[in-house]
């Protein structure tokens, strides 16, 4: 597609449940990023993929968070045993290069843990 697509756009889940958030990057973009944006804050880096591999997952807050990109295109961010503090907008971006000017962000998935 023309842009980065994220689904679902909104997700409400109960505390303790497992969720998966999907990102479909721009075709041909080898770099893919996940960020998390809390209310009133700027996005915070979570993980960076170059191709199929996670080149840097240092931003993942703990081992409940995991992301995959098995074929080097679509990526899934997985959160186990969700907590209310996980509530945020999860943004995905893709780029041709590692430089920021190649970033295109999706509209995000708003996750609410109740």
């Amino acid at each position, binding site marked *: 597609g023309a842009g*980065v697509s994220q689904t679902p756009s909104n997700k409400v889940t109960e505390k303790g449940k497992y969720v998966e958030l999907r990102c479909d990057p721009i075709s041909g973009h080898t770099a893919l990023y996940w960020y998390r944006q809390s209310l009133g*804050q*700027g*996005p915070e880096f979570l993980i960076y993929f170059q191709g199929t591999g996670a080149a840097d997952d240092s931003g993942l807050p703990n081992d409940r968070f995991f992301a995959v990109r098995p074929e080097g295109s679509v990526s899934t961010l997985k959160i186990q045993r969700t907590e209310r503090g996980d509530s945020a907008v999860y943004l995905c971006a893709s780029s041709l290069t590692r*430089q*920021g000017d190649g*970033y*295109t*962000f999706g509209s*995000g998935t708003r996750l609410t843990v109740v």
Partner: protein
Amino acid sequence: GESVGLHLPTLSVQEGDNSIINCAYSNSASDYFIWYKQESGKGPQFIIDIRSNMDKRQGQRVTVLLNKTVKHLSLQIAATQPGDSAVYFCAEARLSGYALNFGKGTSLLVTP
């Protein structure tokens, strides 16, 4: 730790006036800076960028100024329009890297 921050959380301007949004950064290793616009319910949208070997860069109705001496970045929007109403973020990065470090954002409100 080092951080990127903004001087003003909100800015209200009249339509047609010029807007200036400021940003301070503290990581002297950053050599690449970007301004993003984020509208409600959308992801950040690239506006303009500047590398540390420059002190000014102009786009369409926007200008970014970089003062490395005081580690200050600004975004100037000429003839502000209602469609410019949004939250604006500055972000810092390294050209050799990939992660962006965002500040908290400034909310720009354009009044008629």
